């Protein structure tokens, strides 16, 4: 760090580094960053509970998707156009994890990779289905680029 390599009239390119202030700076930085560090990454899954006049007008050739929970490992996908049911798929499995995998595959093959454009998706919860399972289903929808999601509330039924 300390080097004097002056030879003749040439100006040295080396410089002296004040170690004390350097260590002070590093310690302060470390303390600040340790205090402000976030160890658990909390994010959000946004849902839009629009209804009535506040709901966005459906685009032409777009469909609405209803994801109805029948149980913790059973869901029903309803595709609706102008309020009328067009198609329906049932996804059932032994566990929630495998059901979610099947749901993802069904959405990809039957909805996303086809000509259907999904405008909105509504998730209908059911007693016995916990919040964690509901969020996992929302996650599957978001993974398939369906972002305009709402949860059917008791008053909406």
């Amino acid at each position, binding site marked *: 760090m300390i080097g004097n390599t002056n030879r003749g009239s040439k100006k040295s390119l080396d410089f002296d580094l004040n170690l004390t202030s350097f260590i002070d700076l*590093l310690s302060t930085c470390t303390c600040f*960053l340790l205090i402000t560090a976030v160890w658990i990454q909390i994010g959000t*899954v946004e849902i839009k509970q629009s209804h009535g006049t506040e709901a966005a007008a459906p685009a032409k050739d777009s469909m609405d998707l209803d994801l109805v929970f029948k149980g913790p490992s059973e869901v029903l996908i309803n595709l609706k156009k102008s309020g009328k049911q067009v198609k329906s798929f049932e996804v059932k499995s032994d566990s929630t994890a495998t059901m979610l995998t099947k749901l993802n595959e069904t959405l990809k093959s039957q909805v996303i990779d086809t000509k259907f454009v999904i405008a909105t998706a509504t998730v209908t919860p059911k007693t016995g289905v916990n919040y964690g399972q509901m969020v996992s289903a*929302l996650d599957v929808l978001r993974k398939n680029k369906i972002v305009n999601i709402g949860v059917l509330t008791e008053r909406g039924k």
Partner: protein
Amino acid sequence: MRLNQSLVTANQFEKHLVNRRRRKNNGAKSIGFALMLTSMVDMFSMLVIFLLQTFSGSPEILVLKGMELPNSITPSVVKEATVLAIAKDGNLYLDQKLVGSVANVTKKPDELLNKLNLIKKQWNATHDTPFSGEMNFQADKDVDSTSVSMVMAILTSSQFQAIQLAVVGQQ
């Protein structure tokens, strides 16, 4: 498991530094110790780089004690808003303050509605733009989904329609 001795024992340069210090003190055993400045600066630098990489500028929200948030693989960034939480025991908290149990609140939502209206009024008084209706919603992952939807119905009726469900991000 045995440590490789060559890794923990002092090398020639370190021994030289210790011996030089001892010689300075006329052979007396030093009370202090030789601080390896190079290693220390290296360690500090690595720590600072690691912490800077993990530094997050997004706002943080308080999570209720004992609450287990659901995991998500598609999380978005947290926005600052009022926090409504349903704990594992079924109690409802608005900004960390107990409102009551979900069963009671859904039967008689007046108290919660009043508090939500107050928040809305305060927001309108401090902002020129129309009410955004944003709400951070936290619930334990084991809470029944119908309880969540009933609370959401109260939020929707109070014009809180952009609900952000708090999740633990998984990359």
